[in-house]
């Protein structure tokens, strides 16, 4: 990933001078950053630092008080509804699958609404997406209530990918998963990023995810954002960043990530 060469056409998501306040409480005062095509960006920050509001702002679910968000050069507020699903996909924290539709219908919903594909073709694509996220085909006819938490997340990811969006927003993708599933989910995200070329922006608290798959990390501190690669962030002397990366959990995850990278290289 060559992040230093930032040409205009390489930037897929551009957050420009976002200001958000609720009543007298300011959440963001001028957040600025760009996301490069094909990268995986992690967003971190303490509780109440405005991660969720930022994610909502980037996906167009919340109108900022000032500033704008551009996806592929278009302002998020001006994107037509039919375009939105092919530009961006969102994986919500609990999956947010529609409980009255089965797995396959959940994935097919945007295809049915926005394309002229025949039903058999829609189904084929839905099954393909299901296989891509590592689900068995026989889950296609199950309903969300019958799925475990991890399965629901995978299906929700398949639904977010239904229209092959350019950029994927993930809200705490590994929260609530057991370590094995969480590692599997990390690998899945990395693989999808490589094979589909989809850009990924995720809010996460999972230090292992940050260290193993994120190209860059954006830290929400002091109502603004500090964005850099992890080695560079480790050198930052902001107290919150120091505590975040150099605390016991950060150190543990860092060691694990190094170990993991070494063994992965050894296997190749």
């Amino acid at each position, binding site marked *: 990933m060559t992040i230093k060469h930032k040409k205009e056409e390489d930037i897929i998501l551009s957050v420009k001078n976002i200001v958000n306040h609720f009543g007298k409480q300011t959440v963001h005062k001028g957040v600025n950053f760009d996301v490069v095509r094909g990268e995986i960006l992690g967003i971190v920050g303490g509780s109440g630092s405005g991660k969720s509001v930022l994610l909502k702002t980037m996906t167009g679910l919340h109108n900022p008080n000032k500033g704008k968000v551009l996806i592929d050069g278009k302002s998020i507020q001006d994107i037509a509804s039919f*375009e939105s699903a*092919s530009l961006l996909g969102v994986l919500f924290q609990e999956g947010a699958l529609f*409980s*009255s539709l089965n797995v396959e219908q959940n994935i097919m919903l945007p*295809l049915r609404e926005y*394309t*002229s*594909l025949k039903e058999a*073709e829609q*189904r*084929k*694509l839905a*099954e*393909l*997406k299901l*296989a*891509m996220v590592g689900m068995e*085909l*026989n889950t*296609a*006819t199950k*309903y*969300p*209530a019958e799925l475990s938490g991890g399965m629901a997340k995978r299906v929700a990811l398949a639904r977010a*990918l239904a*229209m*092959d969006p350019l950029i994927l927003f993930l809200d705490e993708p590994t929260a609530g998963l057991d370590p094995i599933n969480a590692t599997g989910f990390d690998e899945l995200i990395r693989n999808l990023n*490589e*094979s*589909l*070329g989809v850009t990924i922006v995720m809010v996460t608290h999972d230090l292992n995810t940050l260290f193993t798959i994120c190209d860059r990390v954006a830290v929400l501190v002091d109502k603004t954002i500090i964005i850099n690669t992890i080695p560079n962030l480790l050198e930052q002397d902001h107290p919150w960043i120091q505590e975040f990366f150099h605390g016991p959990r950060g150190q543990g995850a860092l060691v694990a990530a190094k170990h993991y990278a070494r063994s992965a290289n050894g296997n190749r």
Partner: protein
Amino acid sequence: MPHLELCIERDDTRIRIRGPLDLHHFHHAKEILQHMHGADNKATIIDLSEVTRLDTAGALLLHNLCNATKQPLALENFSAKHKVLFDLVDQINLGKSPIKKRLSSWIRTVTRVGKATMDIWPATFELISFMGLSWLMLIKALKHPTRFRFISITHQIEAIGINAVPIISLIALVISIVLAYQGQAQLKPLGMKQYTVDLIAISVLREMGVLLTAIMVAGRSGSAFTAEIGTMKVRQEIDALRSMGFDPFELLILPRLIALLVVLPLLTLLADIMGLFGGALISLSLIDMALPEYLERARHAITGKDFLVGMIKAPVFAFVIAQVGCMHGLKVSGSSESVGKETTTSVVKSIFLVLILDGLFSIYFQKVGL
């Protein structure tokens, strides 16, 4: 989409694709490629060197062409990025869809009717056993009066009873006015306009008062019971209570049952009063009968029995409404959709049972001469 246009050309055996091969161009591309391929079976190679964007749908299209049973095509000049995606799609062995064939519509109708009929027995059994359980719990609680949750009961009495006073008064008043108006219109030409009072007094006290109240309460509070308890079930609050050693039956259902048993007779009394008042309004305005005369007439028309017949039904209806509402609340499983479904079933079932019971009461009172 403001992408570069998709352009597909054929040059003898080579098909060249230019531009984006994605979901939005899927249909277009599929038609052209099938046409080119099927026309004379000459094409053997697809050149992909100028494809600007390939997504899953495009890869699926190429995969299908490569694996066509009749004259498969070869792919050339993949960019490295597109090759990765194509290989991923190519490797996934989809096999047969697990979709069951849909039965014809009349068979489905018959099956649905059959299933609904078969479900009647288990549902009846379920309700009866739930009622039995309620009696047991009620008796158990009576043995240890400290187990009654008085705060919870008073809260329910306010929600079910006091808050329902305006709407129940209004409905009883309006219905009795309508009844009296229609009655006097029929009786006046016969010269028996004073019998309007008998009509109103007897029908309100025996039937209308209690029936209207019960139906209103079933719609208002029975549904609330199901939705409240159902939502608690979805959010695992019921499990949380159990894990702390509380009995959800005692904590949630008993207070609602007791509150409804107390409140429904009182609301019925209110509806009776408002019904008689509505009759008085019509008598005063349309049949020139002053209030003392109306009351005198009404006192002759009705006996204590009529009032009793109405009131005796109230606690029975209350019991049924509370039971059905709470039982369906506990039956909620998993999804938010199920809360809606159970709430609908609960309201329909409690109103239906109230009407059936009312019919049985009528026959019984007739037989015993009340």
